[in-house]
């Protein structure tokens, strides 16, 4: 299955992936309207210390601990893509405890959100890949 991989050698720490992610998942057509004066809710986060940076999002594990930990049955694996049914999330935060990558975050409105490889929005291809100016994030089979 194609997954998102990050090569920290080319990550510039520009954080554009976060903004393109938040825009893609906002459902708003205009990027300015979607993000201006708002706390952005990205499903990808740039981790940075000194000169090293890289973007982290859901690894879409073959043995997803979040799925096992979810008491509401909200997180499931759909053809390898780990997706969340937000209507079933009870905000127990078990997935946050279970995920070794910190890939799940609570949305401002409350329930959990996570990267679904842009399969559930109108992007088609993951928006972070398209937005990365240096091909540091790739979407490929490995």
């Amino acid at each position, binding site marked *: 299955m194609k997954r998102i991989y990050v090569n920290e050698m080319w990550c*510039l720490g520009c*954080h*554009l992936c976060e*903004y393109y992610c938040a825009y893609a998942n906002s459902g708003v057509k205009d990027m*300015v309207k979607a993000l*201006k004066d708002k706390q952005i809710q990205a499903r990808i986060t740039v981790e940075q210390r000194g000169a090293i940076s890289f973007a982290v999002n859901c690894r879409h594990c073959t043995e997803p601990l979040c799925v096992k930990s979810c008491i509401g049955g909200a997180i499931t694996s759909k053809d390898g893509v780990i997706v969340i049914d937000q209507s079933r999330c009870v905000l127990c935060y078990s997935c946050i405890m279970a995920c070794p990558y910190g890939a799940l975050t609570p949305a401002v409105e409350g329930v959990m959100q996570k990267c679904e490889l842009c399969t559930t929005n109108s992007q088609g291809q993951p928006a972070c890949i398209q937005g990365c100016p*240096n*091909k540091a994030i790739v979407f490929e089979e490995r």
Partner: protein
Amino acid sequence: MGINYLYPPFEIMRNQDRCITCRVCERQCANLVHHYDEDKKRMTADESLCVNCHRCVSLCPTRALKIVKTDHIFKENANWKSEVIEDIYRQAGTGGVLLASMGTPKDYPVYWDKMLINASQVTNPSIDPLREPMETRTYLGRKSSKISRDAEGRIIPNSSGQLKLDIPIMFSAMSYGSISYNAHKSLAMAASELGTFYNTGEGGLHKDFYHYGKNTIVQVASGRFGVHPEYLNAGAAIEIKMGQGAKPGIGGHLPGSKIGEDISATRMIPLHADAISPAPHHDIYSIEDLRQLVYALKEATRYTKPVIVKVAAVHNISAIASGIARSGADIIAIDGFRGGTGAAPARIRDNVGIPIELALASVDQRLRQEGIRGNVSLVVGGSIRSSSDVIKAIALGADAIYIATSALIALGCHLCRTCHSGKCNWGIATQNPELVKRLNPEVGSNHLVNLLTAWNHEIKEMMGGMGINSIEALRGNRLMLRGIGLNETELKILGIAHAGQ
């Protein structure tokens, strides 16, 4: 602080309605132009630091930014233009030579734009390159004037040490030091994919790039940086750099601040020591001396590699080229005065040398008249901007073309002409690891391959239009060119008729 006589040349226009304060402009500007105002919760900028490289503009996700020329003016004066006045303020303040980068921005005539290309109509057929064979492969090196045949009448090959180019365009010399590791790697990768050559420049060859050797031209310049037997044998050809179009008559200076560990090892000089290339080669004061170096290099490589001699286009270029053609060199590279540089004194860049179009035409003419054109191939560079410039250069007599500025633009360069600051936001003309990583060679080489593939398509189309199906048939075919708006002397030097004739 005193009085600051200089007003910033650019203004940064930020559309606050569109700015989402993602701060990418702030993070990506090595000149520290942009910053976030916590109190106002908005971005602001200090335009006095801006070099107009467009990094922020290109990365801004909402197109909230643009850079405009300031409309702040001096009292208008056709003689004392604002740049002239500002340069005087700069020099009065510093007492130093003005430094500049890339090719001259001055408004000198561009002869490429004053030549028009022919096409076939009625009496001779044009060729469709998509349906019929069209050859853009060419070979560089000494051509034998004699053809000998074996008993069965087959031609016995007698040319040796030829460079085979799948497209008649090569990447010209840019040293590792003047440009970054990733820029060099992009050029090397692209040259090997395209079946052409890139040039190490005078800074030696990084150990990681030896495996690109068969697509590499290794340079020997006056500073002899990084020259050793293994280096000479690593490339497909050796270039002796006598001069550079942007700064004929002077050497080079790579400041110690750019000489990090890798560059120090590649150039074989101490860490953080200034790398100074002398103006002349101290062992070359005549064509005979040049001949000695040509043969020393040939000897060192067992006569397997062609030797290129690169000179800047200067006033008596045809006599110089005639001498070089007799020195044993296989290829002459001529660099026109609009050629680029990582740093040069501005006055030299803007005032010394001659246009490559005129130099090429007169050299080709002179070598033909003397019957020694076949001794050497001619490669020209110094601001070849498009495939039509390539066609025109070949029709004027060039065997192949060198490009560098066009290649850097393909890598993202926006010609802000501040390479000498070492803070290239595009990761090209810098050695700062944070900035170098901005140029991913996978992306860079892909852009270069695309550019030359596109040019090659266009070259084929234009050659087909002329009814010509090979570079060999276009070379020196000045009947395919007509001048427009040129005077008698210019037409005579270019060896072309005026449009309508």
